[in-house]
């Protein structure tokens, strides 16, 4: 009798042990990713759709079981564009055990670069400031830097200008983000780029830019390069329209031709500036929702699936957000495929190996995102667009731009 009892108990225990182990194995792992961005405060018009994109794609990954039995958990918090809050969010995420971090502002990316290195955590920033890469070996840009974008625009500007040396003004955001490409542009001019940088204006919260535009006209400025977010650009364009100084064709004498870097233009600018956007030149590495393609269809489907409104679904900032989280998820998928344990280090290694045939195409960019130890700028291609009939249309084909050393 006692033997039977002992056998029964040992069988029961063994069964329970197997049950516990197998249920643990079936439950899968949870990988955590953190994002801190400006959903309120300055630049929140960019940060809101950006964060919604990250949230939606995270849900999509889990709903579609893209990681098999494993789950993705995304922490998304508002930092109001304040570095102190960003740092607090980052510390919270580290306490939670994140394996990948997505940052937003230029200021916080520069301030926290050493933290990324110390924590050895791969980080993709929404800021394309080249300086982010200097302060941290673990910082990555989703596309080419502001400097490359500004220099590419400047090259185009000079190459297509007719007449004397073009007189150029810069209209920039009053922050590290806005100032990022200014010094490099000045260096390029000192190095032989044939243009004069007449004035660099850091905008405030002006509701009208008439005085500034009049001053530029008096100084014979012909081109304005914008490095800021869309609302101040829209205000300036409306003032320019009121004055009748927007060039009808590129480089028209006595008028102003406006050009913008990634965050300064796009469909969001069309929505804000209306007809004043006509003739605005804009460069980015992303494809547009106004152009038919698989990227557009996928984005619309994603936004619709999670109940987003049309403005969000068509926002290029939503596109940006999707792309960065796609890259992060892709590193997890690749590391899993190789049988590696998902850690910060393995994801960092996967990012560095994302080049050549392994470069990642997110469908919403004009070229694949590729990273290596010597190149931490994702998509190396740029596309020039021009606003025509209320829509940004491509000008020429995508081009690779490498800034002079």
């Amino acid at each position, binding site marked *: 009798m006692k033997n039977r009892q002992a056998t029964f108990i040992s069988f029961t225990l063994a069964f329970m042990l197997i049950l516990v182990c197998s249920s643990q194995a079936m439950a899968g792992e949870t990988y955590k990713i953190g994002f801190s961005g400006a*959903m*309120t*405060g300055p630049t*929140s018009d960019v940060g*809101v759709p950006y964060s919604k994109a990250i949230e939606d794609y995270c849900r999509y990954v889990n709903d579609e079981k893209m990681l098999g039995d494993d789950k993705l958990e995304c922490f998304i*918090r*508002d930092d*109001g564009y*304040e*570095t*102190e*809050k960003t*740092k*607090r*969010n980052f*510390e*919270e995420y*580290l*306490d939670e055990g994140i394996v990948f971090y997505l940052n937003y502002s230029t*200021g916080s990316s*520069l*301030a926290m670069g*050493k*933290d990324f290195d*110390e*924590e050895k955590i791969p980080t993709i920033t929404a800021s394309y400031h080249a300086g982010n890469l200097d*302060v941290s070996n673990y910082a990555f840009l989703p596309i080419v830097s502001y400097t490359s974008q500004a220099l590419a625009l400047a090259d185009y500007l000079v190459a297509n200008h007719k007449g004397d040396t073009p007189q150029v003004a810069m209209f920039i955001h*009053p*922050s*590290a983000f806005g*100032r990022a490409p200014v010094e490099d542009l000045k260096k390029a001019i000192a190095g032989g780029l044939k243009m004069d940088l007449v004035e660099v204006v850091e905008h405030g919260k002006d509701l009208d830019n008439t005085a500034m535009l009049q001053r530029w006209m008096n100084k014979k400025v012909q081109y304005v390069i914008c490095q800021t977010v869309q609302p101040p650009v829209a205000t300036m364009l409306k003032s320019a329209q009121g004055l009748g100084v927007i060039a009808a064709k590129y480089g028209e004498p006595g008028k102003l031709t406006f050009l913008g870097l990634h965050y300064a233009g796009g469909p969001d600018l069309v929505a804000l500036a209306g007809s004043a956007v006509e003739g605005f030149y804009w460069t980015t590495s992303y494809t547009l929702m106004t152009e038919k393609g698989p990227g557009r269809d996928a984005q619309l489907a994603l936004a619709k699936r999670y109940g987003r*409104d049309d403005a969000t679904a068509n926002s290029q900032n939503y596109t940006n957000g999707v792309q960065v989280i796609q890259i992060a998820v892709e590193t997890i998928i690749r590391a899993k495929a190789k049988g590696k344990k998902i850690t910060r280090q393995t994801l960092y290694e996967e990012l560095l190996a994302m080049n050549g045939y392994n470069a990642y195409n997110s469908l919403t960019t004009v070229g694949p995102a590729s990273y290596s130890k010597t190149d931490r700028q994702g998509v190396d291609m740029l596309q020039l667009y021009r606003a025509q009939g209320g829509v940004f249309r491509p000008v020429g084909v995508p081009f690779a731009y490498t800034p002079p050393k």
Partner: protein
Amino acid sequence: MAQNRWLATGNFFTSYKEEQRIFLTHLDRLVFICFLVVLFVWPLFLEVGNKYMLVIDNILIAMVAILGLNLLTGFAGLISIGHAAFVGVGAYTVASFARILGDSHVLITHAWPLMILMAGGVGAVVGAIVGLPAMRLKHLYLVIATLSFQMIFQWTINFMSFFNQGQTISIGRVFWFTGKIVRKQHYFFWYYVILVIVIILGLAVRNLLRTRYGRCLVAVRDNDRAADAMGMHPGLTKVYAFALSGFFAGVAGALHAYLFRGAGFESFTLHQSISYLAMAIVGGLGTLVGSFLGPTAIIMLDLQVENLSEFFKHQFSAALDLATALRPLTFGLVIVLFLMFEPRGIANWWRIVRSYLKLWPFRY
């Protein structure tokens, strides 16, 4: 003097000296010592994440700053809306050394107590200079003078390349007797450093108020002509109040720079100055205990409002504007409510609780 030094339920002073004791009863002293022991010991037993250690460290730094602002506004009656700029002066003193010598220079990493003291000194000098108009100006005019200092500070930091145009100037990790303070120990280490500084400066203010220099501040606040007639120099007293306040703010700035491992423009804006003023008002102007309660209340409130904003954002996608407005709205509302219903601040609640406990179980 009270017969029982442990449980005095009323005032039994027979001399001014007795009235000026730091602790009126032995029980007060014992409770204070026990409270200090708790403050020093709790991190050893309770595990708190880095996020909350950072919040706690921030509260302690704000306490140092508010001690200074309370001396200026609460005790000397001089309203300043440029206090964040004074804090910034301290932070940028350390950052300037880092910029010139390198962020890991031995002076920054090893002689950090000296750097903190130096930041306080620079803050005091700048405070005294900014306080010079106080010899001539009063009330609203003085407020505008401090506002202009805030503007000058912001412009200087934002546009001078030496200050990296407001972008963060990084500061290296410090060393202690045990070696380099690595990331894991960072917030824990600075908790103790800032706590010690808060205690020292708190006792210093308490002592200052017992001296004639402290009484001078209060006399000038209450009636500067009467103070003048009594042989005090109201103008110099005001400048001295600004210098003292600048010293506290400078120390707070240096601590801020070390805690965040860098100095960046956005931590020292006009908005932050108004926050400091709110902390002083909510805590209780002209009270020492208010300097500790105000920062705690406002920073914790800020944190809760943030959580509420997050909730709104997730619940109502169209309510984003509400989420953006929630912080300034709550902030303004709290100040207005305190000014209307409790102008003496949370410190008054503390006073009521203490007197109730002192007399307990009797009501009178």
